[in-house]
């Protein structure tokens, strides 16, 4: 039996490189003006999953994403880095879903992929910053969860050891499986795309994308079934439509105000040269100084 890891990943607008058109007049994010990227902490989650795959021959990494048709790019990006395959949950009926409705849909998709060992995702997405979807999905799946993971030093068939990055230090916990994990940005950066995997999977398409291709690749897809990215709709998930979209979303945005940025993460630095170097690099890169 294989060791199955499901990575939850989201395509998000790149809110880290905001220009003047980043927000609309009503205070909502102008998605059209921002490039769509792989949510950064989901990349950290993918890396932790791939590290387990590096160690275990029987490991299978499946990426699951929910969003519009173009979010299929997330599945390809994950495959370029080493994921085995992926699914796109997409349907107009999902539009307007809050975290509750989203985790409902995701949990149904995860159930379709049973049996699994781990469901791993970033702590939060940079467009909403709620950090709710991972934990809510775990609740709906009725499995234990470990949040704020930054390292997985040990994995066996029966349990897993996880280091959690907390405000005042690092907590090491041991947990049973199946398990849901959310990953903190202090986890290792995701590996680069691999040249051969990129060339192998760059033609991977969803059915919808294939319909929009100008070239006819039918023969290629018959020969290489792995290039097919499955799309799952509401019907495929046998979901209750009432629990999706606006009707399934109790969260209503009442008002939006501009806020001044406050610190979110904390990091302990020693006085070693290396830490000071890293601190300086970070400050320069984030344009705090320089």
């Amino acid at each position, binding site marked *: 039996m294989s060791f199955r890891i499901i990575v939850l990943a989201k395509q998000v607008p790149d809110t880290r490189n905001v220009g003047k058109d980043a927000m609309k007049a009503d205070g909502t994010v102008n998605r059209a003006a921002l490039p769509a990227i792989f949510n950064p902490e989901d990349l950290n989650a993918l890396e932790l999953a791939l590290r387990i795959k590096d160690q275990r021959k029987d490991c299978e990494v499946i990426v699951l994403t929910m969003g519009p048709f173009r979010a299929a790019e997330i599945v390809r990006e994950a495959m370029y880095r080493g994921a085995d395959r992926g699914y796109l949950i997409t349907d107009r009926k999902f539009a307007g879903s809050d975290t509750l409705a989203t985790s409902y849909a995701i949990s149904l998709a995860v159930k379709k992929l049973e049996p699994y060992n781990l469901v791993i995702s970033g702590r939060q997405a940079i467009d909403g910053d709620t950090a709710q979807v991972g934990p809510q999905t775990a609740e709906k799946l009725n499995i234990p969860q470990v949040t704020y993971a930054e390292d997985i030093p040990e994995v066996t068939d029966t349990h897993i050891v996880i280091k959690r990055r907390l405000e005042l230090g690092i907590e090491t916990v041991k947990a049973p499986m199946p398990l849901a994990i959310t990953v903190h940005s202090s986890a290792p950066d995701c590996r*680069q795309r*691999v*040249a*051969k995997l990129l060339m192998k999977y*760059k033609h991977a398409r969803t059915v919808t994308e294939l319909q929009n291709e100008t070239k006819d690749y039918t023969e*290629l897809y018959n020969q290489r079934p792995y290039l097919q990215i499955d799309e799952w709709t509401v019907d495929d998930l046998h979901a209750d439509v009432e629990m999706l979209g606006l009707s399934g979303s109790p969260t209503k945005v009442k008002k939006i105000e501009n806020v001044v940025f406050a610190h979110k993460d904390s990091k302990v630095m020693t006085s070693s040269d290396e830490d000071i170097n890293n601190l300086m690099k970070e400050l320069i890169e984030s344009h705090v100084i320089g």
Partner: protein
Amino acid sequence: MANFYNDNENLKFHLTHPLMEKIVKLKEKNYTEMEHHDYAPLDLEDALDSYDKVLEIIGEISGDIIGPNAEGVDHDGPQLIDNEVIYAKGTQENHDALVKAGMIGMSLPREYGGLNFPIVPYVMSAEIVSRADAGFANIWGLQDCAETIHEFGSEEIKNEYLPRFNKGATAAMDLTEPDAGSDLQAVQLKATLDQQTGIWYLDGVKRFITNGDADISLVLARSEANTTDARGLSLFVYDRTHRAVKIRRIENKLGIKGSPTCELVFKNAPAKLIGDTKLGLIKYVMSLMNSARLGVGAQSVGIAEAAWREALKYAQEREQFGKAIIRYPAVYEMITNMKVKTDAIRTLLYETARFVDIYKAYTFAGHDRKLEQAEREEYKYYLKLADVFTPLLKLFSSEYCNQIAYDALQIHGGTGYMKDFPVERIYRDARITTIYEGTSQLQVVAAIRGVGNGAYLKALQAYGAVEVKPELQYMKSVLEKMTDQFGKTVEKVNEFEDNEYLDFHARRLVEMAGNTIMGYLLLHDANRSDVYTKSADIFIRMARAENIAKVGFINQSHPKDLGAYKQV
């Protein structure tokens, strides 16, 4: 979040040159590889798209990892511990990232785990990596050795060594010795064959060996006892796992400090022969050197790009007398000339790379099948061009890269002389490019053949036959005049039938050819994209003025003047 490929539109421009169609078709055996390899391209468009996407990965690794590591690597450098070279932490990180991304053995065939990339995208990768860290580019660029093993090694050697490259093996080319630098015929390191086992054993000293502690080393050695010239030299492959080489020291250099330059002592080191004996220098090393010179061309362009960008940034930010210094003519002229020269050596780089690509592709095709008559002629045509363009490229790119780095530091003023800005490192790194893999003076010796046998003139005439848009015609007219002037000046020097006199003016003549060639290449770039019109215009004016000055000097000289230069 920097990407050194995406932020440089010039690269995409050269990647989509019309000649790529021929190159890719040859390299991909008419797109039949996809039957056996899931990452082989389906057609030209697919192949170009793959190069583009893979270069984007290289650009990302260069911008996000190699570039930010460069200062630390320059500061820390490699260390020699227990006869082992330990890379600086950043160097190891760079190497690991590129290995994991599968960027070693890029040009090797897929059957050996390579990406089967043509030379053009491979050289482009080298340019990108060099812009991030020229010293590191040496370590990564030594994958060139794989090409030599692939071209000349036996099946056994190819199967043993080539698959190791894509898995991350590092390489070195061990040529230079204390008394054999530019003059490699003087190599003394001894190779002795054990008749019973068929294994060769190497004994002797190698000096200035880049990445000397590599996993796989190509070693030039004297296999024929009692010989003193090139005909007694053969090429060997040595595997580091034998642990039969003592690393005496790592040199303390002016620049490219991250790249370990070693002095090595071979003690009864087992090695395998590449190809045939006696062809080591004459054939194999010449081929290896040609790829290495192309590599230095790419490195030089990368350094020039880095220097130019640093200078531009500083000139825009630095204010004196109430305005940014870039607004003063003395500064903006420098900045623009730097950009124009970078465009010029870049277009020469990719032109040369295309010539090498085509003749190499035919070479390998010739191993599999008999080439048609037309193909053989094309092979010879491009081989000849590659032969005369390679030294020209090495000469111009390295000299320009030094001029550009010099000016970039100058623009920084006193600040540039301090260790506070990257420009001082770039300036130091640039300095080696005119020296190693054959000094500029030796490139002239190689290039003057193209002057003598008319190869440059022929190439110029072929460029002149290409029609350009009416609005660019005025530049073509200037270049035609320059071609004519070049031909006449060569004749004038040759009239004396004095070889020393020809050597005395060799560099001037070679540079006249080079100036005109780069002028044509930029003109053709402008013909394909308006973006290059300005560079072509400025370069051609500069080149015209330079050539006129050279002709002025040549016209007023005579073989009898040489005496004045001989007496020091």
